[in-house]
């Protein structure tokens, strides 16, 4: 679904935001992108959206080299990528339903499609009753649900989430994660950048860790701050504190298996 081939991106006058990243994310994967601020997570997502182009290397989304797309084709790439942000980015003067419908309207869907899809996706995120409210009248968690509904209403192949729980309390965050998990189970690939230790540790999904633009870890069922050798990669937080009690360090085996599965998928 997503493949980075030796991708390097440098911003003017700084160290590399991403350096020589090669990675493959299969269809249906749920991937946590972790790492300290400035490690390149956001650059990773921006490159996927083709808001920027890599200096070297290629990025493939759904079998297409997105660096080779003409400017006019970029919107069609983005229709396959849903986006959720820490700050929700809802339109404050539109109701919940209008915010979701807006997506379909601007890509030219017919009014019937818009109406049925919007109510369907609002029911999915549990906001069917609040379709007529303005974002300002909703709680943070509800606003993020609207944002997820908006990102998902067009049934994208990939959902990109940049710290979607960054502004939410743990209980609300859990609700959001359950929702993302449900969406993932429909076959939608999810790439989520996060700092949220608790979430990564409870979900036990694939973890890709970046540091200073380098890929330092790719673990099939990872936790937040522990690499394959069991050493903490997150400065200042001891690994022991992060590892859920009762979990053994058998990640290596699982990683191997997952890598094989991904390899097979890639060949197909």
């Amino acid at each position, binding site marked *: 679904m997503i493949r980075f081939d030796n991708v390097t991106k440098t911003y003017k006058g700084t160290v590399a935001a991403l350096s020589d990243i090669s990675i493959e994310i299969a269809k249906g994967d749920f991937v946590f992108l972790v790492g300290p601020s400035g490690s390149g997570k956001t650059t990773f997502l921006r490159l996927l959206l083709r808001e920027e182009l890599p200096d070297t290397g290629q990025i493939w989304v759904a079998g297409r080299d997105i660096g080779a797309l003409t*400017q006019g084709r970029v919107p069609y*790439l983005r229709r396959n990528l849903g986006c959720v942000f820490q700050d929700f980015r809802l339109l404050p003067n539109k109701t919940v339903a209008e915010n979701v419908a807006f997506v379909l309207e601007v890509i030219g869907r017919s009014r019937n499609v818009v109406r049925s899809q919007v109510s369907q996706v609002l029911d999915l995120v549990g906001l069917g009753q609040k379709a007529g409210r303005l974002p300002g009248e909703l709680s943070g968690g509800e606003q993020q649900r609207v944002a997820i509904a908006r990102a998902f209403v067009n049934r994208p192949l990939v959902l990109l989430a940049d710290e979607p729980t960054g502004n939410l309390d743990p209980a609300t965050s859990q609700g959001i994660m359950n929702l993302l998990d449900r969406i993932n189970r429909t076959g939608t690939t999810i790439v989520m950048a996060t700092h949220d230790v608790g979430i990564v540790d409870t979900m036990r999904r694939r973890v890709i860790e970046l540091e200073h633009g380098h890929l330092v870890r790719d673990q099939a069922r990872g936790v937040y701050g522990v690499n394959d050798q069991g050493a903490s990669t997150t400065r200042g937080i001891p690994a022991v504190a992060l590892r859920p009690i009762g979990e053994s360090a058998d990640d290596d085996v699982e990683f191997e298996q997952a890598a094989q599965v991904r390899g097979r998928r890639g060949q197909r």
Partner: protein
Amino acid sequence: MAISFEYVAKETASNLWRNRVMAIAAILTVAVSLSLVGTALLLRQAVSRQIGQWSNNVSLQIFLQPDITKPQLQAVNQRIDQLKGSFIRRCTYLDHQQSYQQMRQLFAGEPSVLGVLTPATTPPVFSCQLVNPNEAKTVADSFDSNVPGIYKATFPGQSVKILQQVTNVLQLILLVIAIVLLVSSLVLILNAIRMAIFARRREVSVMKLVGATNWFIRVPFMLEGLVQGLLGGVVAVGIVALSNIGVNSLITHYDVKVLSSSSLPTGQLVLTEVLVLIVGAFIGMVGSSLAVRQFLEV
């Protein structure tokens, strides 16, 4: 992808409404500048038409002595016939009575002149059209008062030239002001669209994110500029039409016969108005395109 007309119309209308103060400023500036353009064009046409009329009708007037004798008249007539074709196109002879009637019309507002005029004292006159009005002086010289029976030959050359120069200068001033105003209205439209883009930056960023095509994002803004330019044009059309009617009714009211042919035929007026509208639309289009190109990073 087809852009739905309904969406574009809705977006453009709501943009204009949200940004109405800027929009009105832009529209009024366009209107004022286009009114000047339209007026300058009409003035030009009216003056050239009037001058054409004068120079066609009375390139040369040969006033005869009131007491001219028959042989003298025939001699003058022969002289005219000799120049016919090469210099003179056609001459009309007005005898005492006809000349008197014409004078009464020309000096309708001046009873002091009319008081002294009688048919007997009014000189008969040959009103001639020249092949080339520029040769008026040469032709007039061959009909000077040395020829028996001729009182005086006059041509309107001098006054027409002055009139032409004055209107040329006036026109130039009007056009310069109009161009300055047109540029400023273009900048105003550009700025209005820039504000509209800024006011809608959230929508625009969401649209970009979810894959709206570039044209889908651009078109409402460009249309907004076009509408502003066009509305300015419409107001200007009204102003130009009104001023045209105003000038015409002034001419009719004061019965200014010499200017009677200044009023333009409807065809010419309509053509000018259409031009004004096109310039308005063009200004709006260019202004908004520049704004979209510069400030809408899609």
